[in-house]
């Protein structure tokens, strides 16, 4: 693979303007001082308890996501472009979801094949014809973006269900400000700390009509054993709302209440971090104890807003992903600002044969997979793995898509052997309320810590960095 574009050094030794101060600072700072700060950061993370759980990993039920102290920096211009593209994309996602669960214009126009929707396990027939407050489905979106060269930001994935990671964006900044005050003094970094306020006002703005003037918002978690539990409690705390589990809620006369020390209290908006399947045992999985019996009928009666709405999975499905440019054009009659990664749909015969012929050069993903599981990274795979994937693809082609291996941009990162380039992506968080769409400047930068690795997922050992958007 060719040398990747580096966020700091471009394609060669041309130091990019946004990194000038950082570069100067790195030259002045002895390596052991950097190492000392790195250890300090790790201690802080552990003490604050910023951990995530890895399922099936009994050795370390709570793990730290490695934190890299070298920030990833973007200029104001770069951010402005990204922001515009993100807003456009999320607007289209919301229009698409409304359409899919109502008129289905896009299917009648033959932009997307019907069976991709109706045969899709994440499509929720329960949502057919159901109105959601203010027609907003995806209140919180986490859009994964990679960069291949100075001008090319590409969307890798639209996370429209319950995207996580925003607590790391906020905590990374806090810890950087604690450990590197001098570095901040040399930069004008746009603040991210208003995210909780923006989130709360977005959530309140989408309260159902039957809510009081001061709607009650709660955050619903599957509980302490969930991998993102830290984030759930962190956000509830920052928002100043109750962190509820299914057992704290009860539905009466199609209204949702929480059990409090003063009796039942009505809830109007639930920021739920529980998957569709587990929300209501009467509608979805009957064996689930995580949900609230009757929640869906309260939802149908219009007495509760769920954020994100039920059924949004259809919009972040990898099979639908390849149609996103068409979706943007269809609803907005605009050219998409953010590109897609070229994607071969293995369900289509022509694409499949191309993929089978070029497996060694491609990344193959399960349509419904996430977290970097069940992927084939052709160039890094053994012959045996490739052959195993070939069989899987032949057996169930509609379960897979394929993409070229992209040269994700790199960013200087602390490693055992000093600073070295490591591949990064970026997950900005897009908030949609009834009045406006907002994005705090920045997001979560994930970094693949292994040399050459392109997998940045935390469950696969990836780390995170603070993301700085410089002001003009």
């Amino acid at each position, binding site marked *: 693979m060719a040398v990747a574009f580096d966020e700091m050094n471009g394609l060669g030794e041309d130091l990019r303007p946004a990194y000038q101060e950082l570069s100067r600072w790195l030259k002045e700072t002895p390596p052991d001082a950097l190492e000392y700060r790195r250890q300090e950061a790790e201690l802080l993370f552990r*003490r604050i308890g910023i951990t995530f759980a890895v399922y099936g990993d009994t050795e370390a039920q709570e793990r730290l996501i490695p934190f890299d102290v070298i920030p990833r920096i973007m200029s104001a211009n770069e951010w402005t472009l990204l922001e515009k593209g993100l807003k456009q994309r999320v607007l289209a996602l919301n229009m698409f979801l409304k359409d899919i669960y109502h008129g289905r214009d896009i299917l009648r126009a033959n932009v997307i094949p019907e069976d991709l929707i109706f045969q899709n396990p994440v499509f929720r027939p329960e949502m057919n014809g159901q109105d959601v407050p203010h027609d907003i489905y995806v209140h919180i979106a986490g859009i994964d973006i990679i960069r291949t060269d100075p001008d090319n930001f590409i969307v890798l994935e639209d996370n429209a269900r319950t995207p996580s990671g925003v607590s790391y964006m906020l905590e990374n900044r806090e810890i950087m400000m604690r450990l590197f005050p001098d570095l901040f003094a040399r930069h004008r970094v746009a603040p991210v700390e208003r995210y909780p306020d923006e989130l709360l006002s977005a959530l309140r703005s989408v309260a159902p009509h039957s809510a009081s003037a001061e709607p009650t918002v709660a955050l619903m978690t599957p509980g302490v054993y969930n991998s993102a539990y830290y984030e759930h*409690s962190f956000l509830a705390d920052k928002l100043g709302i109750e962190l509820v589990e299914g057992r*704290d809620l009860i539905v009466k006369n199609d209204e949702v209440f929480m059990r409090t020390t*003063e009796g039942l209290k009505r809830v109007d908006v639930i920021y739920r971090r529980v998957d569709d399947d587990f929300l209501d045992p009467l509608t979805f999985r009957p064996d689930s104890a995580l949900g609230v019996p009757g929640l869906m009928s309260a939802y149908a009666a219009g007495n509760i807003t769920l954020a994100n709405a039920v059924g949004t999975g259809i919009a972040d499905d990898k099979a639908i992903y390849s149609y996103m440019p068409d979706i943007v054009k269809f609803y907005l009659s605009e050219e998409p600002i953010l590109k897609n990664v070229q994607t071969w749909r293995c369900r289509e015969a022509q694409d499949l044969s191309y993929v089978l012929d070029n497996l060694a050069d491609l990344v193959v993903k399960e349509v419904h997979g996430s977290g970097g599981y069940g992927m084939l990274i052709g160039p890094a795979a053994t012959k045996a793995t490739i052959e195993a994937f070939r069989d899987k693809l032949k057996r169930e082609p509609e379960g897979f898509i394929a993409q070229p291996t992209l040269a994700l941009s790199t960013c200087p990162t602390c490693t055992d052997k000093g600073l070295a380039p490591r591949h990064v992506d970026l997950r900005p968080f897009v908030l949609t309320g009834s009045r406006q769409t907002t994005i705090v400047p920045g997001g979560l930068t994930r970094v693949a810590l292994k040399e050459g690795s392109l997998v940045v997922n935390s469950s696969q050992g990836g780390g995170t960095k603070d993301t700085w958007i410089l002001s003009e």
Partner: protein
Amino acid sequence: MLSRTAENLFWLARYVERAEYLARTIDATLRVTALPAAYVGKTNEWDSALLTAGVGASFYDHYEEANQQNVVEYLSFSSDNPSSIKNCIEAARLNSRSVRTALTSEMWDTINSAWIELQAVWGKGGTGSREDLAKFLRFVQETSLRFDGSAYRTMLRNDAYWFSRLGVHLERADNTARILDVKYHMLLPEEEHVGGPLDYYQWTSILRSVSATTAYHWVYRETLKPWLIADLLILNDTLPRSLASCYSNLVRNLDQIGVAYGRQGAAQRHARGIRNRLEHSHMDDIFQHGVHEFIQEFIADNSRLGEIVTKQYLI
């Protein structure tokens, strides 16, 4: 506040209080057993430590003999004992995680750091040396002091605080009552005549397990007398670990909740009933009635309060 949050706060406080109490019990027992046999006679202090911890029966499911090593292990580190210090700290940490939003960062930091230290340093009980044990016991007591102190200094005075205080005082009352119950035979007036060194050190151990040796002398300005020790631990409102003091606090905290919620209930009435009984009792009457019976009734009433609070607020 969510009922579950209140319940977690209540139990979190109880676990921390219980861990500290167990550490005190072990500490006091160690001191007695370190004395030459001539001073302490043949009683097995480790058995009585098990009894005050309320694990007398379950201990023998796992061990043959109640000696120092076995009892210390069972009370401190054993995973088989649901209320070992280790399990208390682990339960406290799990509860803390599920109510992080209701804790101040100082409280969380205390519990989380203690839990980390427990894993890192005390996972297998240290080296088993007496020095290590002393360090461990100090670590537990300091955790509890820090936790209490950070709650006192950083929590808003609202229902979250009051529910956690309810946990502290309910657990504390239970612990004090258990010590008295196990040692009640030493507090009987007729034993006054015995007055030998054996009694002296055993009485001291009672005071030591509630950190009240100095307090005793301040209050009574007398040599150790069993009925005065009983008076101090049961009726003296100025001693923070006395039953009377625990109930003053329980009544006050329940009243604060009642006022904030604009509603009183069975919990407030029940707690007031117990406090009034303590207020109007004299040691003479208690001895007449029987210390053991009095304490037994108290333990039952106290745990009944826990049930009532649970029903009224926590579920």
